[in-house]
C-alpha cells in the first residue's frame, strides 16, 4: 500500500470481498425506499386539494361520456399505459371506463415522428381522436416534454379537460396555461418522481371510482 491508497482502496480493481458492498447496497436500498415513502407522503399531502379537484373534473368528464387519453415518453409512456389500465379497471366500472394510451400506438407514433416530427406525435393523436369533454392526461418527469405540452395545447383548444403530472417542481407544466390541473412532485430524481406519480395516479383513480360509485348508488 502506498501513501494515498487508503483514499482509493480499490482503484486497481482488486476489490474481492463482496460482503461489504452487499451491506452498503442493502442499506442504500432501505434509505432510497424510505425517501420514496417520505416523498409520496409529502406530495399526497401537498396535492390533496388539487387531487380532489382533478378527480372531480375527471369523474365529471366520464359521467358526460368523455374518454381518457394518456401519454408520455419512455418510463412515463409506460406510466401512461398503467394509468389507462388503472382507470379502465376500477371497481364496478371494470371494463367500463373508456381509456386509451396514446403512447401504445407504435405505428401511429413512429409514422408521425418520422413524417411530421416527434414534438407533434401526441398533439396529432389528440387532434384526431379527442373531442370536447374528453380528458387528456400527460406525464413528464421533467414537466417539459415538448410533445406532451403540445398535446395539452391541442386538447385545451378542443375543450378537453387537461391533467398534467410532473416532477422537478412542475417544470414548464407549472406555468402551462393549457393545463387545467397539474399534479407535481418536488424532487429531482426521476425514479422517486415516477414512484410518487404512480401513487398520485393510484389515488386519482380511486377517487374517480368513489365519485362515480356514489352516483351509481343514487
Amino acid at each position, binding site marked *: 500500500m502506498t501513501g494515498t491508497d487508503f483514499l482509493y482502496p480499490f482503484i486497481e480493481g482488486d476489490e474481492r470481498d463482496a460482503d461489504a458492498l*452487499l451491506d452498503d*447496497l442493502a442499506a*442504500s436500498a432501505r434509505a*432510497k425506499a424510505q425517501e420514496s415513502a417520505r416523498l409520496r407522503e409529502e406530495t399526497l399531502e401537498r396535492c390533496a386539494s388539487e387531487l380532489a379537484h382533478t378527480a372531480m373534473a375527471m369523474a365529471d368528464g366520464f359521467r358526460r361520456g368523455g374518454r381518457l387519453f394518456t401519454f408520455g415518453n*419512455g*418510463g412515463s409512456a*409506460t406510466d401512461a399505459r*398503467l394509468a389507462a389500465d388503472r382507470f379502465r379497471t376500477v371497481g364496478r366500472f371494470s371494463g367500463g371506463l373508456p381509456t386509451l394510451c396514446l403512447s401504445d400506438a407504435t405505428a401511429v407514433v413512429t409514422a408521425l415522428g418520422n413524417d411530421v416530427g416527434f414534438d407533434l406525435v401526441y398533439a396529432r393523436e389528440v387532434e384526431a381522436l379527442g373531442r370536447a369533454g374528453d380528458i387528456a392526461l400527460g406525464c413528464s418527469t421533467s414537466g417539459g416534454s415538448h410533445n406532451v405540452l403540445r398535446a395539452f395545447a391541442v386538447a385545451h383548444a378542443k375543450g378537453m379537460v387537461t391533467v398534467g403530472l410532473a416532477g422537478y417542481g412542475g417544470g414548464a407544466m407549472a406555468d402551462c396555461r393549457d393545463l387545467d390541473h397539474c399534479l407535481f412532485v418536488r424532487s429531482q430524481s426521476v425514479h422517486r418522481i415516477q414512484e410518487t406519480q404512480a401513487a398520485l395516479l393510484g389515488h386519482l383513480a380511486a377517487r374517480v371510482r368513489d365519485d362515480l360509485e356514489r352516483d351509481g348508488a343514487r
Partner: protein
Amino acid sequence: MNALDTTSPPLSVGGDLANDLAITALELARRIAVGATLWCVAPAAPAHAAHLAVEFLHPVIMGKRAVPAVALEGPATRTALRAAARPGDVLVLLGSVREPELHALARRAAPWGLTTLWFVTDADTDIDADADAVAVPVAADHVLRAREGTDPWVDLVLAYHLLWELTHVVFEHPGLLQPSAAAASEVCVTCADEGRVAEVQQLADDEASVRCGGVTESVATGLVDDLVAGELVLVHAGVAIARIDEAS
C-alpha cells in the same frame, strides 16, 4: 453469487427485500459485465416490463452505461425468448405466482441457459394463506418480493428502480464484477458461458435426468465419463460438460 452457489436452495423467500435486491444486483451486474441481455416479461401488466427495459437500455442518469434490455409481450413471448435469448442472458419476470406462464418461463429459463429474476407481486400473506394452490417459484434463481406497501403498482416500480440503482453501484466496483476463482474454473471452455450445477438422478445411455435449480431435466452426458447418481455436474445448454469435484 457464482455457479457453485446454485447448489444451495435458490430461494430467498421470506428474506428482506433490501438484502435480496443487493444480492440480485451483484449477480445481475456480473452477468451484464460479461455481455448478458435482459429479457423482461410481465404478462399481466406488460407496461412494467417495458418500463424496466427502457430503464436499463436508456438510463435516466447521464453517463450511466446502457444495458441491453428487451421487453417481450403477447402470445409469441415464449417462442421469441426461446429463439432470441442466449445462454448467459437474464430473464426478468414480473408478476404473481398465480400466473402459470411465468412458472412455465421460469422452468424453461434454466434449460435455455438463462438466469431468472422474479419480482413477485403477491402480498406475502396471499401466498402463505394459499400455499397449496400456489407453486412457489422454485425455478427462479432470485425471488424478489416486491410487495411491501399498500399499492402494488408503486411497490413494483420502486423495487425495479432500486434494482437498477444498485446494479449501477456495483458497476463502480470493477473488482467485484469478476466471477470468483471457483466459478471461473467452471466456465464452459468452448463458449465462455457459465454453466449451472446439477445433481445426477438417473442415468440411461447417453442421457441423464438431473435436478437443477429445483426442477428435474434431462441432459446429454456424452462429454462426461462414468457418472454415477448423486454426483454433481456442470450443465450447459442441456449437456453435462464437466464433473464437479466436490472434494476440492
